[in-house]
């Protein structure tokens, strides 16, 4: 059972455009929602994260929008650049008491064209 659904699977955006990736979850015990960026041959790198008591978080060109009632969150990349071309994973964390377990979405392959 997939607990975090991510869309689209792939995305092509022109340089300077806005990239939008959406995620939805079902488990209301999730309490931390990070986004990871992964380049080929590399491990995932934390990009930005949000907690459910905040509806939006912005860091530079990257913004997370969070809708707790709808159990949805999204990543917006403003002024997308070719260097942003990577795979993006949303994730959600549940504190089990002994560890915070990450559940990943299926990933979105972003290509930013010139």
């Amino acid at each position, binding site marked *: 059972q997939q607990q975090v659904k991510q869309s689209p699977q792939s995305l092509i955006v022109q340089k300077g455009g806005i990239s939008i990736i959406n995620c939805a979850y079902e488990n209301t015990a999730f309490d931390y929602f990070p986004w990871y960026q992964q380049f080929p041959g590399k491990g*995932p790198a*934390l990009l930005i*994260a949000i907690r459910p008591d905040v509806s939006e978080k912005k860091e530079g060109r990257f913004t997370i929008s969070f809708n707790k009632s709808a159990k949805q969150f999204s990543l917006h990349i403003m002024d997308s650049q070719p260097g942003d071309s990577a795979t993006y994973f949303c994730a959600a964390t549940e504190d089990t008491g002994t560890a915070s*377990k*990450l559940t*990943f979405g299926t990933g979105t392959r972003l290509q930013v064209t010139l």
Partner: protein
Amino acid sequence: SAVISQKPSRDICQRGTSLTIQCQVDSQVTMMFWYRQQPGQSLTLIATANQGSEATYESGFVIDKFPISRPNLTFSTLTVSNMSPEDSSIYLCSVEAPTDTQYFGPGTRLTVL
């Protein structure tokens, strides 16, 4: 953020053999995690490794196939045992920061022939 290294970065192995992957962190951490990422896929948690106790395995992963050691607060190993081509994946370790964030190593790309 923690700096994490993994060895080897990649390997090609014959079926039926075993490979041990090392994960080293530059600071002491309580929790370390091992993930598998099959080609073109997302990350799946294999197990959680807490120093001084047995690793906790996720559904579908067993200790006989993926034994884990956690001898101290900066190091862990994952062994992939009796390998088959289906084990060809990227294996990643991660560590948990106090803010619930996890930081990942660069991964070990394993190909089983």
